[in-house]
């Protein structure tokens, strides 16, 4: 509740039109960004608490879940730097949704398993576009490609899909993402 309250409060502050539309001074814009980053980090604790209750069998801790806040510019340490990963999708709508996942990867050959863990689903590998490469990044990119596949998510529910690299994985090294706080 404390973490959720923190996120709720910073979102409340950011509802001011200055927090949305650019009508603040630069220093204030940085402050909004910092508050929101702190709030999102607090919210991630809530996500992990929820998955600890939902995911594991009795006595088995759930793996730590992490967000990829740079996914829109094709950066995600979980998928770029490991040869296998789990991706969980939560659908807030009250009807099933077909969602297309797009994840940055270092390799060029992957298999994706549906939520039963054994059924392969079709996937594409596309190069990361040049317009993405021109965006400055906080750390060097490991990904050259994007893994694209369709996900069937139930109404107001979640599914976990599984990605596994089939080749080129020897040099991958996973580093957990550090919390993002703007300077």
């Amino acid at each position, binding site marked *: 509740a404390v973490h959720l309250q923190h996120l709720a409060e910073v979102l409340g502050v950011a509802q001011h039109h200055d927090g*949305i*539309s*650019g*009508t*603040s*001074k*630069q220093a204030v814009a940085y402050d909004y960004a910092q508050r929101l980053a702190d709030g999102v980090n607090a919210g991630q604790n809530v*996500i992990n608490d929820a*998955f600890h209750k939902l995911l594991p069998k009795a006595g088995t801790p759930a*793996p*730590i*879940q*992490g*967000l*990829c806040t740079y996914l*829109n*510019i094709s950066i*995600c340490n*979980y*998928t770029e730097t*490991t040869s*296998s*990963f*789990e*991706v*969980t*999708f*939560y*659908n807030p*709508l009250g009807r099933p*949704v077909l*969602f*297309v*996942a797009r994840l940055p990867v270092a390799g060029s050959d992957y298999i994706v*398993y549906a*939520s039963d*863990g*054994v059924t392969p689903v*079709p*996937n*594409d*590998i*596309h*190069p990361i*576009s*040049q*317009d*993405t490469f*021109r*965006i*400055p990044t*906080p750390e060097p990119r490991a990904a050259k490609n994007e893994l*694209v596949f*369709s*996900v069937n*998510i139930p109404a107001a529910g979640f599914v*976990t899909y599984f990605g*596994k690299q089939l080749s080129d994985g020897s040099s991958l090294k*996973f580093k957990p993402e550090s919390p993002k706080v*703007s300077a």
Partner: protein
Amino acid sequence: KAGNTISGKYYSVTFDNNGNLQSITNLTSGLTVPITQNFLYYKGFPGNSTDGQASGAYIFRPDGNTPIQIPLTTWGGIYAGSVVQEAYQQFSSWASQVVRVYADKPYVEVQWTIGPIPIDDNVGKEVVTRYNIPNFGNNGVFNTDANGREILQRQLNYRPTWNLQQTEPVAGNYFPVNAGIGITSGDAKTLFSVLVDRSEGGTSLNDGDVELMLHRRLVKDDGRGVGEALNELGSDGNGLIVRGSHYLLLDSLSSAARVYRTVAQEVLLTPQVIFSNSNTNSAQYV
């Protein structure tokens, strides 16, 4: 992939030999329209001795009513898979996009990336994209949503509740677009809609136009209280780079709402994506 067409179950998009958008086909209804898309920018009005109101954070006020085109410079080609087919376009060193058609999604996705907008010439710039369907016949009428709720009809140089004396031919016809903007053909048979993933400004200044404001970077304060020009910088000290998506839908008027409402829901409440590395195989994990 060779050729100039990307297609899925619901849509097909064709580009000309230079890589410019040429036509869109709804494969369910069989509707095809020729379409162009341009990236342009308005110069921000800086104010002068007789008219001090500059374009800024609160005020959109272009210097002149004709925007400057940013021509396509690089056609990046088409990449086709079983899930998505996509085409890459570069318009300048600071404007580019990817057009995508998915195998199983009922829209055309246009993911644009704009910035940092250059201002080393000391001219503020307000960047728009303009889709145009020739001879569409919407007669200056278009629809925008009101904060994601009601779809309202807009008409050029007109307000329904007072006699408008229009002094800003461009900015005075811009309206908020929070979920989407659409135009209906003159024969009332076809609706062309553009859904957005973030709030933008939008209008339809010419017949068949859907114009959306994507990014702004200005050099003058508009004097409305901020005290700074709208010149937001990223952590690297350069102007911001902004990325967003448009979702294009072309359908018969009778069935369009069924599609654009469900797509709009999925854009607003998009699934949350969360990752883990458990170092177990998938069957054990399940």
